[in-house]
C-alpha cells in the first residue's frame, strides 16, 4: 500500500515518469525495429496463408493489448473507487482512448486479413462481435467520463461503467472455445506446447512485447498530458476568479 500511495502525489509522479519515459520510448523503438525485421523479412510465409500471415504480427498483439488496456482501465477504476487514489482516475481516463485505438487496429487488420483468407471483410461470429462490443464499451467510457461539468463526477461514473463492462473481457478470451466460430482458437497461450512454429512465434512474441511497451509509453504520455491539462485548468480558474 505504501508504494501505491507514494505516487499519489502528482509532482512526484511527474518527476518519476519524466525519468522513465525516454527509456520506455527507446525500448519500444528497439523492439519494433527487431520485431518488424523478423515479422517482415526473417520469418517464413505460411504454407496456406502465404505472405498474408504477416498481418497476424500486428493483429494478434493489438488484440492482446486491447484486452490488456481494458484490464488496466478496470483495475485503475477499482483502485480509484476503493482507495480513492487520485492517479488511478487519471490512469483510467488516459487508458480509454489508447485502448480504443488498439481495438480499432485489431478490427481493421482483422478485416484486411479476413478479406483474402475468409473471402469477407466481416463475419458476425462471437469473437469478432465481442471485440466490436469492447470497442463500443471504450467509446461509451470516453463519452461518459467527459459528459459531466464536474470532471470528478465523470471519472466516478466512468469507473463504475469500466467495472461493469469488464464482463466482456473473459467473453472475448473464451469466445473461440465456447462457440463454434470462424475465428481460429487460441494457439499461443495453451497449457500444452504452442501450436505455432518457433520461426513464427519469435516475431509474434517480440511484436507483442513491442506493443506492450508502446502501450505503456502512450499511457504515461497521456497521464502526463492529463495532469498538465488539469494544472492549466486550475490556473485558468484561479485567473478568472482573480479578475
Amino acid at each position: 500500500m505504501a508504494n501505491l500511495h507514494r505516487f499519489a502525489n502528482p509532482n512526484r509522479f511527474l518527476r518519476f515518469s519524466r525519468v522513465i519515459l525516454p527509456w520506455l520510448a527507446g525500448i519500444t523503438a528497439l523492439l519494433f525495429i527487431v520485431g518488424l525485421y523478423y515479422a517482415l523479412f526473417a520469418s517464413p510465409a505460411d504454407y496456406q496463408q502465404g505472405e498474408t500471415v504477416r498481418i497476424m504480427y500486428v493483429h494478434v498483439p493489438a488484440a492482446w493489448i486491447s484486452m490488456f488496456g481494458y484490464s488496466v482501465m478496470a483495475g485503475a477504476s477499482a483502485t480509484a473507487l476503493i482507495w480513492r487514489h487520485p492517479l488511478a482516475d487519471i490512469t483510467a481516463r488516459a487508458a480509454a482512448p489508447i485502448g480504443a485505438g488498439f481495438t480499432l487496429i485489431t478490427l481493421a487488420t482483422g478485416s484486411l486479413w479476413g478479406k483474402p483468407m475468409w473471402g469477407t471483410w466481416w463475419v458476425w461470429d462471437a469473437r469478432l462481435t465481442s471485440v466490436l462490443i469492447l470497442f463500443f464499451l471504450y467509446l461509451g467510457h470516453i463519452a461518459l467520463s467527459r459528459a459531466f461539468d464536474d470532471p470528478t463526477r465523470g471519472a466516478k461514473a466512468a469507473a463504475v461503467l469500466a467495472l461493469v463492462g469488464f464482463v466482456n473481457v473473459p467473453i472475448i478470451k473464451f469466445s473461440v472455445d465456447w462457440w463454434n466460430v470462424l475465428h481460429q482458437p487460441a494457439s499461443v497461450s495453451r497449457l500444452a506446447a504452442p501450436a505455432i512454429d518457433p520461426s513464427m512465434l519469435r516475431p509474434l512474441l517480440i511484436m507483442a512485447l513491442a506493443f506492450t511497451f508502446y502501450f505503456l509509453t502512450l499511457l504515461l504520455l497521456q497521464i502526463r498530458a492529463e495532469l498538465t491539462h488539469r494544472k492549466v485548468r486550475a490556473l485558468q480558474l484561479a485567473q478568472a476568479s482573480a479578475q
Partner: protein
Amino acid sequence: MNAAFVILRRELHLALRGSGDSATTVLFFILAAILFPFGVGPEASILARIGAGVIWVVALLAAMLSLERMFLTDYEDGSLELLTLAPLPLELVVLAKIAAHWITTGLPLIVATPLLAILFGLPPQAFPILLLTMLIGTPTLSLLGCIGAALTLGARRGGVLIALLVLPLYIPVLIFGVGAIDAAVTGLPVRPHLLILASLLVVALPLCPWAAAAALRQALD
C-alpha cells in the same frame, strides 16, 4: 422489505396517474416495427424471416426510451436523496425502481408483441417461444438499463449517452432471444438458448442493482 413494496407502489401510482408513458412506449414499439415492411418491402417470406429479429431490436429500443426518467425526476426534486436516507438498503430501492420500470415498460411490450408477430406473419410455432423469450429477456433489459440511467444522472445529453452505454450491454440478450426463436422455427432445440437467457437474468438480478446503487451514491456524493 415492506418499504420496497411501498416504493414500488409509489412508482406504479406515479406511472398510472402520469402522462401515459407506457402507452407512448408501446406506440413507439409498434410504429418503429411497422417501418420495416416499408423499408424492406412487403414480401411475406422476408418479413417472416426477419420478424423475430425486428421485434426484438425494436423492443430493446423501446425499453431504452423510458430509462432516462427512471431516476431523473426523483434526482431533480430531491426525493432521491431522501430515498438514500431511508432505513432500507439503496439496492432494494433500486430493485423496486427496476421492477416498476419492467411493469410499466416490459410488460406492455410483451402484451403488444403478438400483434406485431401477426403483422410480420411469424410461423405459429414461434409465437410461444417469442413470448417466452420476451418474458425472460425484458427484465434483464430493465436491470441493465438501470445501470445506464444511474450512471448518466446529471450528465449533459443524458438520453443519448444512455443509448451508447446500454446498447452494447443489451447485445447478449438480443442474440439469445432471437437465437431461441430461430431455433424454434427451424426445429432445433430451443432449451439451451432459453437457459442462457435465464442465466443472464439470474446473474443480472443481484449484480445490476448493486452496481446501479454504487453509481447513484457517486451521483449524490
